[in-house]
């Protein structure tokens, strides 16, 4: 099922592939990038843990590190129904929504069984027989391979991370291990967050999933204008406040938009008359 070798060959230890020709170098580069990602992900786990930011970052890093063309992430809500939380491309978004709509597809199977579902060629007879709706839909959206990895800790499955390729391909063992590791850290992060809130918080955790990035940008703009700083600087203020006050970034951004964040001193919280502004460009 698992075929050694990836399209560009710089991850796998493929006989005759580039990884074998330059084994030490490539492995070191991949390890280095993976290690950086772990540090980055771990960094988001401290203080105001923000699930949305964490999952968006995870999805993006999977595409960069695991040599796939797109990634999507489904998480179960309070009713046990999978919901789309992040998708790296519009095509991945469509395919994920399509599976949820039809209640059929490898990502749902992976969630239900708690096992990885590796589909090196969506067009082969076995895949089309197993998922008669999903297979043609994935093909129509430009995908030829899909790998669904369950987000699982022991017997608890909370979602799946799904990797899409535009050419038929298996999941290289080295890539599979890296994907597993990324998914495991995400799963532990989510479950730890849930435990710390002492209740089934899934619904609350999932708030504004697909909008969180835009909400954060809008809040950055509001803070930038109110505090007379750049949006980049506004983000640092937002993040520091989030950590120091143990409030999730997305939630805090929503509070900034609603005018209830507490970041801005009260005297600045209302728009000042135009004449009150110091001279600016």
């Amino acid at each position: 099922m698992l075929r050694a070798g990836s399209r560009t060959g710089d991850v796998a230890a493929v006989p005759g592939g580039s990884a074998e020709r330059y084994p030490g170098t490539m492995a070191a580069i991949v390890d280095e990038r993976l290690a950086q990602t772990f540090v980055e992900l771990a960094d988001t786990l401290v203080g105001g843990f923000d699930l949305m930011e964490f999952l968006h970052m995870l999805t993006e890093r999977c595409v960069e590190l695991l040599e796939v063309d797109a990634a999507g992430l489904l998480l179960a809500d309070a009713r046990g129904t999978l919901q789309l939380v992040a998708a790296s491309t519009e095509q991945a978004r469509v395919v994920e929504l399509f599976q949820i709509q039809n209640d059929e597809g490898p990502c749902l199977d992976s969630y239900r069984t708690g096992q990885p579902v590796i589909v090196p060629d969506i067009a082969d007879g076995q895949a089309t027989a197993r998922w008669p709706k999903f297979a043609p839909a994935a093909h129509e959206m430009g995908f030829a391979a899909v790998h669904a990895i369950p987000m699982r800790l022991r017997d608890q499955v909370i979602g799946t991370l799904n990797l899409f390729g535009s050419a038929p391909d298996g999941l290289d063992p080295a890539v599979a291990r890296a994907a597993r590791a990324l998914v495991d850290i995400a799963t532990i992060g989510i479950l730890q967050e849930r435990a710390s809130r002492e209740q089934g918080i899934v619904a609350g955790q999932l708030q504004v999933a697909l909008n969180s990035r835009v909400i954060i940008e809008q809040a950055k703009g509001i803070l930038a204008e109110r505090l007379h700083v750049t949006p980049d600087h506004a983000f640092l203020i937002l993040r520091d406040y989030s950590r120091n006050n143990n409030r999730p970034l997305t939630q805090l951004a929503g509070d900034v938009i609603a005018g209830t964040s507490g970041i801005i001193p009260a005297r600045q919280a209302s728009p000042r008359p135009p004449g009150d502004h110091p001279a600016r460009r």
Partner: protein
Amino acid sequence: MVSDRAVKVWRWIAAAHEGDGPVSVAAVCNAAALRLGVDGASVTAMSGMHAGEPLFASDELSALLEELQFTTGEGPGADEFTLGSPVLIPDLESAAARWPGFVPEAVAAGAQAMFALPLQAGAIRVGVLSLYRALPGPLSAGELADVLVFADIALQLLLDASAGISGSPGYRPLSGLSDRRAVVYQATGMISVQLGVSLGEALARLRAHAFAGSAALGDVAGDVVDRRLRFDPAADADA
């Protein structure tokens, strides 16, 4: 930046536009009903936290479904869309337990499948696009991809109608106005403070400014973020 699919959907909407007035959500609904294999489409605007104000329905059943959702507070279009994802119900009867007040009446009236898409960008939420089918059946992948574009264009049309530019000669929501980069949303936040208005109104003003100057939305947004351009409530004519 504009996908082939977006160009195709805009052509459909432009072709469905009737009369001399601005292209509106009426054209969106009629085009959706014609092209997506559905039997009707409707758009409601937000009133408070829920979609309630009907703007257009392509047929009588669509209008009835909106009314039913409003009165029962249930149904795909009455969802709070907290996740930002569409609610896709290919077999309405299977959702009877979820919406016990709405589903029996909707099915009795002749709807067997419903699809609802929030019209939103971050904290900006202007309404909901709803579609129904008289027979059960899922949207195909292509229809699903198309309907996401329909929703995106409906959002832009509603913003631009509020700013009064959608009736202007040469108006196209896709040409220069469909930028989705972070800088557009940052500028939206900044303008909302400069003018003391909602994010939705701020984005509408930003789009109107870009349209009036034949500039790309992202370029104007960049000027706002770099503080080369400021929206001044005193000089209200500026947008």
